């Protein structure tokens, strides 16, 4: 019953330029850790409602894997002792994992891209505890956090270049898209 004529591709956030990933690959991750701790602390203080939305899922351990970066993040939002760390490879035993290009992850977190739309177009993918991922996504969407600035602003000049590259990518995306198939 589907109309077979398929048309344009939908809006998808592009991957970061490979030079940026290559430039970051040899960098040590240790300097990232205090910046991540600072970021979590700042978010926890400025957005306390986030924990109300996360509920029981605040105790879960999330892997966040920007597929165009040479490292990933492990996030444990626990209200009393939140932790986030950068890792070369995600460890086993995570409750849930979200994968996708950094622009997609940040765009979703900042509310400029819709998580379900990214899922439908296969840009983002989730594994493990899907309820925990939904709770995290919804809590962050409601909190309206400027992630580009919070995460990368504290990482010095390279972080700033990353934030600028991301911002350009997100701003270049059209708000609406045409194409898609029709069915009747």
């Amino acid at each position, binding site marked *: 019953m589907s109309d077979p004529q398929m048309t344009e591709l*939908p809006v998808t956030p592009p991957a970061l330029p490979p030079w940026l990933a290559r430039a970051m690959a040899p960098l040590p991750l240790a300097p990232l850790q205090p910046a991540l701790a600072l970021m979590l602390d700042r978010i926890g203080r400025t957005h306390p409602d986030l924990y109300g939305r996360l509920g029981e899922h605040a105790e879960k351990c999330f892997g966040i894997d920007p597929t165009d970066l040479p490292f990933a993040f492990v996030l444990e939002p626990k209200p009393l002792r939140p932790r986030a760390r950068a890792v070369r490879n995600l460890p086993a035993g995570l409750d849930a994992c979200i994968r996708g290009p950094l622009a997609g992850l940040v765009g979703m977190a900042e*509310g400029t891209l*819709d998580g379900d739309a990214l899922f*439908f177009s296969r840009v983002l993918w989730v594994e493990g505890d899907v309820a925990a991922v939904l709770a995290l996504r919804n809590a962050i969407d409601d909190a309206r956090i400027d992630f580009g600035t919070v995460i990368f602003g504290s990482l010095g000049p390279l972080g700033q270049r990353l934030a600028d590259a991301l911002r350009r990518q997100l701003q270049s995306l059209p708000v609406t898209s045409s*194409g898609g198939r029709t069915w009747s």
Partner: protein
Amino acid sequence: MELICPAGTPASLEAAVEAGADAVYCGFRDETNARNFPGLNFSRDELRKGIAFAHRHGVKVLVAINTFARAGAFGLWQAAIDDAAAAGADALILADLATLDYAARRHPGQRLHVSVQAGAANPDAIRFYVENFGVRRIVLPRVLSVMEIASIVRESACETEVFVFGGLCVMEEGRCSLSSYATGQSPNMNGVCSPASHVAYAERDGRVVSTLGGFTINSFGKDEPAGYPTLCKGRFTTPKGSGYIFEEPVSLDAALMLPALRDAGVTAFKIEGRQRGRAYIAGVVRSFRNILAAIDEGRSAPPAGLAAMTEGQMSTVGAYRKGWR
């Protein structure tokens, strides 16, 4: 014509108001509403503040308390009705006869709408709700053609509201048991179809396989668009072959039908998607606001341009134009 927009969080409510909603609908963070998803919905305090924000901008707030009350736990639904009325809700959206009866008696001045979950699809059913509970509006199920809607409107003594964009439920609303068969939880009783807690994704032979309550329901090749993990949009094997037997992953997009729906006498157009993020709410509401403005001014409507927001990257005008008949 009113534009009725979804909000799953206070931030989405503000996004809908800013994008041009005439009214926003939302629900409490519990099983009393049909979008009882993790991390979604409003506390009592958030609802009060959301209503105050919307009213400052001249926008109404409709509170959905549209699941069917669980035996022995009616107090939860009564409290939701009392609290929404006290918070200043412009209307309550109800489905269960017991909640309609309670709201009509306890809050006689409160505007009541019948939820799509009630499946009121003919003038007799609508007359019953109007005469017994004084309801002012019916949200029509997504199973009617424009001609059928026009004839219902002619014979009914209350306003009608229809969905124009978003997720589709192929079963007659409020009567689907697929989710409860697979997971023990249903949108009608628990406020959630195919609960995320019962969904799993795994990679198998280069394809991503989705399961619900242990049943494999679909698998997607590398670049194949995906849909929600609901049984109605699963692929099944039958003696006649394998494929989508209920419905393909697809979203309703009735932008092209708006003039016909207006001419049929519909009062309000509703956008589905309280579970979606702010980006969806802002984009879809703005797009429909522009289309409605163009129709009002007699201009040709701009294209909705919402392909990326649709499930499976596919859209349909659904039952509004029953081309298969």
